Every structure is written in structure tokens, then in C-alpha cells.
């Protein structure tokens, strides 16, 4: 093991594993993890149900203070806190993967129709089918998201192969078309049923349950390692297709794989909490400005930044004006965009010096 000025180099004894870790990114990752831990603790201790922090700790340790408190902590606060962090990480990772694939910094899950496809499926199910069960919602959202993403991918494909700009233009067009159908359903469908879809459409973590946490956690555990596993090849594709091919990367396969993972991450997150705007766009850029790093480490910092952003948005949304509840989806943009602008301005100043 050795250290350089800006990197920490790790080699195993047989040198089968050799890592060159950027110190700044490592520190950023640790600080973001610490921030997430603090926000999660505050989130667990904060809520309309008045309770002392030590009682929350006792409840988490399995000591029952009261049945009502057990219910509040175990059924409401804990799953909600975990779901916020997981959803934030997944949306951020999706954005980062899409930006890598398309080599376009404006790419995010709404660009590939994931949010719009999920929204159309959920609103259709809610408004058109009176016996619709809430348990079906994640599946409907997931199916809607995947179908629209596949349609965009299929329509943007030509005989010459896929083109990033064609993919983006097709995404914008089809997403807008789908949004207009959703708006029509919301306006002209049964008003009571349309209302039921409103909180989900605003991106609310209000009703996150343990089954949601398991779903998010499981898929995160599968998709994040998969994204990291192809990160070296992805890094090569960022230098251009010709260079990547000359380096031995099967660009088409990597591009499709990255796209599939990005869509799956966003579709699963959206299916649980609804469309969360800006996280996928902001988090990768924020991570790059906080700590520039290689693609693998950038993905980890991005995931952590997304988790912090959505956790903070959810905490502020439910505690700042309690008992008035503001959906996290409304606050991610309110919190994220000013932070993003500050980071952009600071990085511009640093570049000009």
C-alpha cells in the first residue's frame, strides 16, 4: 500500500488486486456517508408523533415503549428513511449511467421516458380501473417505464445503429406525447380517482413500506455492482467510439447494458415513490464538482449525493412545516437546483483561475 499526493494506491500481496483511489473522492464519499447518517438519525427522531430520541433508540433495539410508538417507528419512520436514501441513490445512478451512455450532460431518467411511462401506467390504472389495488402500482409503474424506454430505444435505432442525439430527441418527443395523455386522463377522468394519483405523481415517500425497502434494496444490490463491473469499459466509451473499439471495448454491448441498467434503476425507484425530478440530472454533476474521479468512484459519490439529497428533501418536507406535508419530489428541485448552481459557479471560478 502506498500514498501519492492525490491518490491512495492499494495493492494486494500478489498484486492480483490493485486500486488507485483518489483521496479527495474518498474523503467526499466518507463525508457524504456521514451526512446521510446524520440526516437518517434526525429523520428517525423527527415527526409529528412526539417522542424522545432515546425512546426511538429503545424501540429500534426491540424494547417496546408502546404499541403506537412501535408502529410509528417500525412501520412509518424507518422504512421511509431507508426508502428515501435508496431511491435517491438509484435515481442518481440512473442519471449518471444515462449521461455516460449518451455522452450528454443533460440526460436524466425523464429524458428516456421512464418517469412519464411510469406516470401514465399508474394514472391509467388508478383512473380507469375502479377495483385497482395499491399493491399493483409498483408493477404497473415498472412495466410502463420499461415499455416506454424500450419504445424510445427501438424508434431511435437505425440501420447504422443507435445515435445518442437521435435517442435524446426521440426521448424528448415521446415523453412529451405520453405526458399529454397523462394530463388528459387527470383532467377528464373521474376526479376522485385522479386525486388518488396526485400524491404519487408529486414524488411522495409518505407511504413507503418494508416491502418497498426490500424491493429497492435488492435491486440496488444487483444493479450497482453491475454498473461498477462495466465502469472500466464505460470509461473507454467516453473517449469516443473509435478509441473505445481500438482499446478492445465492445461498445454496442456496453452501451446497451448501461442503458438497460439505467432504465431499470429509474423504473424501480419511480415505481415505488413516483417521479422525482432533477435528482438524476443534478447528482452526477454535483459529484463531479465535489470530487472529480474515475467513472467507478464517480458512481459511488453520485449515489451517495443522490441519497443525501432525497433524504434531506423528505426530512424537510415532512418536518419543516408539520403537520403540513410537502412531497419530496417538490423539494428535490427546490433544494437541489440552488446547490447545483453554487457548485457550477464555484467550479467555473476555479477553472478561470
Amino acid at each position, binding site marked *: 500500500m502506498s500514498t501519492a499526493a492525490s491518490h491512495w494506491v492499494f495493492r494486494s500481496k500478489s498484486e492480483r488486486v490493485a486500486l488507485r483511489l483518489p483521496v479527495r473522492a474518498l474523503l467526499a464519499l466518507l463525508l457524504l456517508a456521514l451526512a446521510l447518517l446524520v440526516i437518517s438519525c434526525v429523520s428517525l427522531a423527527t415527526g409529528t408523533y412526539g417522542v424522545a430520541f432515546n425512546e426511538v433508540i429503545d424501540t429500534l433495539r426491540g424494547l417496546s415503549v408502546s404499541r*403506537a410508538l412501535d408502529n410509528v417507528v417500525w412501520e*412509518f419512520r424507518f422504512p421511509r428513511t431507508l426508502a428515501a436514501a435508496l431511491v435517491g441513490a438509484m435515481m442518481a445512478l440512473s442519471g449518471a449511467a444515462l449521461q455516460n451512455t449518451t455522452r450528454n450532460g443533460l440526460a436524466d431518467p425523464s429524458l428516456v421516458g421512464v418517469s412519464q411511462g411510469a406516470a401514465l401506467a399508474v394514472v391509467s390504472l388508478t383512473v380507469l380501473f375502479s377495483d385497482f389495488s395499491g399493491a399493483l402500482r409498483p408493477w404497473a409503474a415498472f412495466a410502463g417505464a420499461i415499455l416506454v424506454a424500450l419504445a424510445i430505444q427501438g424508434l431511435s435505432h437505425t440501420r447504422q445503429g443507435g445515435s445518442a442525439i437521435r435517442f435524446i430527441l426521440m426521448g424528448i418527443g415521446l415523453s412529451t406525447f405520453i405526458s399529454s395523455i397523462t394530463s388528459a386522463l387527470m383532467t377528464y377522468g373521474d376526479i376522485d*380517482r385522479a*386525486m388518488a394519483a396526485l400524491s404519487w405523481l408529486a414524488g411522495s415517500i*409518505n*407511504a413507503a413500506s418494508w416491502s418497498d425497502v426490500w424491493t429497492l434494496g435488492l435491486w440496488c444490490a444487483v444493479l450497482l455492482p453491475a454498473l461498477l463491473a462495466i465502469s472500466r469499459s464505460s470509461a473507454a466509451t467516453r473517449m469516443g467510439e473509435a478509441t473505445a473499439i481500438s482499446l478492445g471495448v465492445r461498445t454496442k454491448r456496453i452501451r446497451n447494458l448501461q442503458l438497460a441498467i439505467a432504465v431499470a434503476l429509474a423504473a424501480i425507484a419511480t415505481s415505488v415513490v413516483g417521479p422525482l425530478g432533477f435528482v438524476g440530472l443534478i447528482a452526477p454533476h454535483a459529484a463531479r464538482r465535489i470530487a472529480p474521479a474515475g467513472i467507478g468512484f464517480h458512481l459511488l459519490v453520485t449515489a451517495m449525493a443522490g441519497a443525501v439529497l432525497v433524504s434531506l428533501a423528505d426530512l424537510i418536507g415532512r418536518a419543516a412545516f408539520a*403537520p*403540513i406535508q410537502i412531497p419530496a419530489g417538490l423539494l428535490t428541485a427546490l433544494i437541489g437546483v440552488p446547490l447545483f448552481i453554487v457548485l457550477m459557479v464555484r467550479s467555473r471560478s476555479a477553472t478561470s483561475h
Partner: protein
Amino acid sequence: MSRFFFRSALAALALSVVVPALAQETRSVTAANGTFDIPVAPQRIVALNDQIVALPLYELGAALVGSAGRVDAEGNTYLRGGMDTLGIDYSNTDIAYVGQFNALDLEAIAALQPDLIIGGTYTDPAVIDQLQSVAPTLVVDNGALGLIETIRTLADASGQTGNFEARYQRYLDNIERTKSYIGDTSAISATTTFMFPAGEELWVYRANLGAISQVLADLGFAQPAAVAALEAPQAPWSAELIQELDADFIFGFYRQQPDATPDAVRAAYEKFAPGFCQALSACRNGQMVLLPGPAFGSTMAGLDLALDLVETHVAGRPFIPFEEAR
């Protein structure tokens, strides 16, 4: 003497054991979301909608401890239609605010330790599932049931059926009284419209606009052909087709929100369709009537008010019949 105290203490102890046991007595009810065991006489009910659930429960005497509400421009919470209809709000009752109907605060509901929660098809199904861990949570499909059956269902769930049936019978008697004043009610046509002060959209209701729709249907009034043909209970109307709304009477509303004064709503109709009043004989003849907000509410008080207002305007004065609608 000491034996008397001993016996009294024993009786009090026995009673304290028996009363909670009675309070736990449950029965099975079927709602839109399934069959549930609920207390026979619920003591702590939370309503997930103010106008549709909380107000009728309160006026029937149910034990309401919390309700969803609204937030005004200054950030103050209020029960929509509460002060207007029953003179109640969070400030002058023991009803606690538990969030907005589409942004509920689950912890605030849990903190009230309810024994029954009642929502509707407008409540997020995932939230309904979550709340089942707090107390049996019923979904009442007010759109499918209609106003009377909705209130009857709420009365049944809250153990207030007797109160409801007494008030409903009085309302039915009053309907017959009004019919006897008017005569052939099927010869009279009426259109129900809804306009916000912004004047951007005009909504026309064939049915399901709370008390006023119920009263007009119970009286047996006719509707213009275009309105009667609507598939949905309500539809946004084109300014170019307003003449299809003409009838003996056209009803609209004011006081549906703080800035909805009669003048503001009248101006909104004109803004939506310039020359609105001149185009419609009902309006030209002074038979386009704006009714106060509680008349489209979901309460028994709203029904009584709507009936009185319709009786006053239709039977309480002469009017010029609309020829084409006949």
C-alpha cells in the same frame, strides 16, 4: 359504612373492567376496499377528507378526533366548508389536523390513536394500506354511492344510523312539501354549472355535485338535452356551446373559496364567454342564480339549505319559462 365503600369500590372496579371490554366490541362491515372488523361504537374516528367525510360525520354526532383539511395562502389550516356549513373549524373544535387529503401526515393520524379511519377513492391506495396498521381504514366510494348512500354509509360505520334516518326522513318530507308548491316538477329544467373566479374553465354537472345535484334529482327537475346526454357526471364546457345550457334555471356557486364573491363569479362567467348573460334566456330573465358554497356540500345541512334555496327561487316567485327546453 366501610362495607358500603368496599362494595362501591368493587362495583367501580368491575365497571372499569367491563366498559373497555364493551368498547372493544366489534362488528363486520364491508367497504369499497374490503370487509373489516370495526368497533360497534367508534370513539376516535379520523376522516381522510374534510368536506366529504368529516363534515357529515360531525353533524351526525360521530366521535371525530382528526380530519384532513386544506391550507390557505397564509399557511393556515382549515376544514373546507366547515365554517360555512356547520360553523366549525380546527380552532373551535377538538378535531386535529392530519394533513391534506392528498398529503396525509401518517404520524399525526397514529398519534391520535384512532379506532376507525375513513377515506375515499381519492385517498392514495398505498396510504390506505399503511394506515391499516393503525386502525381499520375504510374506503367509501362516494362517487359510486351518491350523496345519500355515502352519508348513510358514514352514519352506519360511525354508529349514528338513527340520527341519519331521522334527518333524512325530515328532508324527504320537505322534498314533498316543495314539490306540492311547484306542481309538475318534470316540466322545469335546470342546469348546474361551476365556475372559479379566474374564469378560465366552466364545468357543467349532470350529477354528483353534492347537495344541489341530489335536491334537483329528488325534485324531479329536467336537464337540457346536452347536459342529460353527458356520459361522465361532469364535463368542462366550451364557450361556443353555452347556448346548449339554457334552461328555466341555471345554478352557479359563490363562496367555494375565499375570493369567490358573487360579483367575482359573475365577472368570471363574462370573462369565460363574453356576452354570457345575453346569450342565455335564464340569465336575461334573472333566473341564473348563484348559490352559496354549502349548497354543493356533502352534508345533511347542505341538503336542507339547497332545498330551501331552490324552493325560494322556483316556488317563491313567478318566473318566465324557457320555451325551447320543453
